[in-house]
């Protein structure tokens, strides 16, 4: 076999070996080097994969030489490749940033474990997007989740332990619901391969076990994705985990869960079963709007910026699920493009706040007073990404909301457009609050150590912030791929 045909396996095997190497080396800086090399190789592989499938084809890889439906099949189409690209690019940007931040926030003897867990988490997240086997998805989901719990527990604050425990309970319930759903599907159809599942479910139609499986899967994945009433683990987890982890998780973990949503709702069960026979769109719509408003309003009243951004994430996930609930071409494009857009802006925001924590050791709003004058570059990154959260024209946030609005208008729901604008105004309040404090209040933390962060930390977040503007003006790449992905999803092709 050529190297090219091995790419799907390499995408997962490389971070796995990297993690093992980190665990064997036991030295923080060597482990970082391994993690950096692996993380930088990931986007290269995923770009090669994306190039192969962007015309609408797919790559199939028979793991262990066992042909599907007996063996596990790795199957990548545009939707999967898009996600793999997103996760690996964020990983590649986070790693240069991680070194300084991790050295500051994590004890020296635990740093090698940190990189081990990070690479395992990366392998798990990439695996979910690559594999074409429902049970294999569960295994990768648990690989990424278990390493995530450890990553969160590595936070300095003792509340990090509690939030990791809380997330462990919620995450495991979510994963178990997912397995129950898969088990029911297996009992009803006798296969675990997603392509086979699609064909057999189309054959047997919405019988009771299939619908029960759908319910379990939706609840399980919703827990992982922090859909509004099931989001309680998220704010604590993002607040108390190390800054690097918050940035990485906010940009990738929930996105991969959304991918599972897309995979199951549109490909496996099919639009006709999910969106025409059941009140799924209505439920999605109500929950999404509740997230957009409820979580955003809570975000306004937070005095810790990491916590505020975490609630904002819950609200932003609402936009993505809103696109899924609309389930028409424009709306779904908005949701899918918001996946990548939100990853960019939340990555930049969490990295910026991580830089502030690096310098002053706090993410409390009051401690940030006047810091804009001392750390101008960091605050500009924060402001740019913040503008994108609000949805200012010229940023990526606007692009997603534009598509969502078009999707709403396609359905004739003009009131939804007003709600979109109204929720943007709330995000304006919480982002504006931070901007006001950092620039227009008298300086609280003085001293020589309060200055901009080193280039290794500044460059990744500057790239993300620049990307929020660039892709806000030139939408051909992000929205273009999203549109192709939506075509595949709405066609119901596996």
């Amino acid at each position: 076999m050529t190297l090219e045909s091995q790419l799907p396996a390499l995408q997962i095997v490389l971070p796995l070996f990297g993690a093992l190497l980190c665990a064997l080396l036991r030295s923080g800086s060597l482990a970082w080097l391994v993690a950096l090399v692996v993380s930088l190789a990931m986007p290269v592989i995923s770009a090669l994969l994306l190039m192969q499938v962007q015309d609408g084809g797919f790559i199939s890889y028979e793991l262990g030489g066992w042909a599907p439906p007996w063996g596990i099949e790795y199957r990548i189409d545009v939707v999967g490749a898009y996600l793999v690209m997103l996760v690996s690019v964020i990983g590649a940007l986070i790693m240069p940033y991680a070194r300084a931040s991790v050295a500051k926030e994590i004890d020296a003897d635990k740093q090698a474990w940190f990189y081990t867990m990070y690479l395992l988490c990366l392998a798990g997240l990439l695996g979910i997007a690559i594999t074409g086997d429902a049970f294999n998805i569960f295994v990768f989901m648990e690989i990424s989740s278990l390493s995530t719990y450890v990553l969160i527990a590595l936070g300095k604050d003792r509340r990090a332990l509690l939030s990791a425990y809380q997330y462990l309970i919620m995450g495991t319930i979510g994963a178990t619901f997912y397995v129950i759903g898969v088990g029911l599907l297996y009992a009803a159809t006798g296969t675990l391969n997603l392509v086979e599942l699609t064909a057999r479910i189309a054959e047997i139609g919405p019988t009771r076990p299939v619908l029960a499986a759908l319910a379990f899967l939706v609840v399980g994945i919703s827990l992982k994705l922090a859909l509004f009433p099931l989001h309680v683990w998220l704010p604590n987890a993002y607040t108390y985990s190390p800054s690097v982890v918050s940035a990485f998780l906010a940009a990738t973990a929930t996105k991969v869960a959304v991918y599972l949503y897309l995979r199951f709702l549109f490909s496996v069960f099919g639009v006709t079963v999910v969106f025409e026979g059941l009140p799924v769109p209505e439920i999605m719509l109500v929950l999404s709007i509740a997230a957009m408003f409820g979580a955003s309003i809570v975000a306004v009243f937070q005095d810790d910026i990491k916590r505020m951004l975490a609630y904002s994430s819950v609200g932003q996930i609402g936009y993505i699920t809103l696109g899924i609930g609309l389930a028409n071409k424009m709306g779904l494009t908005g949701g899918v493009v918001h996946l990548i857009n939100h990853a960019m802006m939340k990555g930049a925001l969490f990295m910026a706040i991580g830089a502030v924590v690096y310098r002053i050791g706090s993410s409390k709003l009051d401690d940030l007073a006047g810091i804009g004058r001392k750390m101008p570059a960091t605050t500009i990154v924060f402001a740019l990404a913040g503008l994108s959260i609000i949805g200012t024209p010229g940023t990526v946030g606007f692009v997603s909301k534009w598509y969502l609005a078009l999707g709403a208008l396609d359905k004739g729901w003009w009131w939804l457009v007003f709600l979109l604008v109204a929720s943007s105004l709330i995000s304006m309040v919480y982002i504006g609050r931070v901007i006001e404090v950092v620039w227009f209040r008298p300086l609280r933390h003085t001293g020589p150590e309060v200055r901009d962060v080193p280039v290794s930390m500044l460059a990744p977040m500057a790239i993300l912030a620049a990307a929020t503007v660039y892709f806000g003006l030139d939408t051909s790449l992000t929205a273009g791929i999203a549109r192709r992905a939506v075509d595949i999803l709405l066609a119901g092709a596996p």
Partner: protein
Amino acid sequence: MKLDLILRITAKLMLPFMLMFAFYVQFHADYGPGGGFQAGIIAAAMVILYGIIFGLPAAQKVVPARLAEFMVPLGVVIFAGVGAIAMLMGGEFLNYSVLLSDSVRGQLIGILLVEIGVLVTVSGTMIAIFYTFAGRGRG
């Protein structure tokens, strides 16, 4: 505890048989129930029993904590390494058939190596967990 002769002697008598049973379960897995998981647990149980009866320092003299922690990734390296070698030899990841020219023998050797990897990881993990919890709160 020191005076409890019966416990100490029975344990000493049992230990070699436990290890032997572990290897029996490991290598007999081709023909009967068993495999790396079960064998790894049984092998680790031997060390853990030794630690419970003779104290943690004695057990750590036999299997140092660093060794146990080293075994955890090492076993996975063996497992994934077999997969990677299969990739180098022109098959898919974990396709054992290409390991030897005779595909049946290749599969046999592949699964054997993988099970040894599982044995190493599982026993290492169990011993490491035991050490970590047993060593807590003693400074």
